[in-house]
């Protein structure tokens, strides 16, 4: 059952610490960031960091790194590639899930830049959510080639250019979890609904011309919750930083389910 309010221990204290901009800063912008310290056990809070944008890179990730390096080394967040290919720095920026490394501070319309961890996830520390279940759901769709026939002895399993192009899109998913954690249906039913990212992965293998387990894969989705908790809200497609469309993939999965009934 959907719980619309946060549990008591998760409620956010809006008045955390404020870190003032240094003397002589010319272009100050406030970053209001969700903080949770697992060692203190205190409720999460919002800390405010005044950053001199004149001495900071353009992206939200640049600002986070500047804060960690120069203002507050206790701030925790994930990051790696800084070019939108690893999916580590997924977070909720200005109310929308996206990658901090590809989101320019100037794109944030609000005067303050508000940063929260990915929504409705257990928080390990600050902006670092626990993605264990998200990865387990990905693993549950068996994201690998499954065949029954014997592989050709002297070559790879080949497919036509057209068949390859079908999976180019969904293969570009970086598993950042922006889509799944933007989905209200996933918020309320993440224990049983697979969510857009895992379903996009399932779709990617179902439409792969080389895969020989399409029936079993569809069988595994034949469930009131795993697939059918998608109500085509479309938050996933709006949130995806790679401009993929999980909603469309899920729609096609539902069609395949219907078509094989007769």
């Amino acid at each position: 059952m959907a719980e619309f309010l946060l549990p008591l221990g998760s409620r956010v204290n809006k008045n955390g610490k404020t870190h003032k901009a240094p003397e002589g800063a010319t272009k100050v912008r406030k970053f209001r960031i969700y903080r949770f310290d697992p060692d203190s056990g205190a409720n999460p809070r919002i800390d405010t960091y005044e950053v001199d944008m004149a001495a900071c890179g353009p992206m939200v990730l640049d600002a986070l790194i500047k804060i960690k390096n120069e203002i507050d080394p206790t701030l925790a967040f994930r990051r790696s590639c800084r070019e939108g290919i690893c999916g580590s720095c997924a977070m909720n920026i200005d109310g929308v899930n996206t990658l901090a490394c590809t989101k320019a501070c100037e794109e944030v319309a609000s005067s303050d830049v508000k940063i929260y961890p990915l929504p409705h996830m257990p928080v390990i520390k600050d902006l670092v959510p626990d993605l264990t279940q998200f990865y387990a759901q990905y693993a549950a769709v068996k994201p690998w080639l499954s065949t029954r026939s014997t592989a050709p002895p002297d070559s790879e399993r080949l497919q036509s250019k057209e068949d390859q192009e079908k999976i180019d899109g969904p293969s570009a998913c970086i598993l950042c979890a922006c889509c799944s954690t933007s989905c209200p249906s996933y918020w309320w039913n993440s224990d049983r609904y697979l969510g857009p990212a895992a379903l996009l992965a399932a779709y990617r293998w179902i439409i792969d011309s080389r895969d020989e387990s399409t029936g079993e894969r569809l069988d595994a989705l034949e469930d009131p919750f795993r697939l059918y908790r998608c109500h085509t809200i479309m938050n996933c497609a709006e949130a995806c930083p790679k401009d993929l469309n999980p909603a469309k993939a899920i729609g096609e999965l539902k069609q395949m389910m219907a078509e094989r009934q007769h």
Partner: protein
Amino acid sequence: MAARPLSPHLSVYRFAYTMALSILHRITGVALAAGLIVLVCWLMAIAGGEAAYARFTAVMGQGLLQVVLAGWLLAFLYHFANGIRHLFWDAGYGFEKAQARRSAAIVVAFAVVAGGVLLYLFFCPEGVRS
């Protein structure tokens, strides 16, 4: 180590057209289902004869219930149009972001315009209309 808190969701996610239309579809669906009771009462009043029907229309003619009926009409028009939008999705059309935005605008515009016209026809006093 403290238990892991749940990160904020509804309270921080920007309320976009996607979620607004989806939750409105569900709310109007519930309202329409509840409104069926009134519809059944109306049918029973018709079956009950002239006196029963007069009593029913007298009750439903009260100001507050007229407002409820007007809301029910708007709920029906929205749910009807958005239901067709869902049928298109079920048939595999209209999943691109631009298409979904356009169909959302069409659904809302239809509900507002058709609702406005019908409410005008239903509620405008005879004298003003002619």
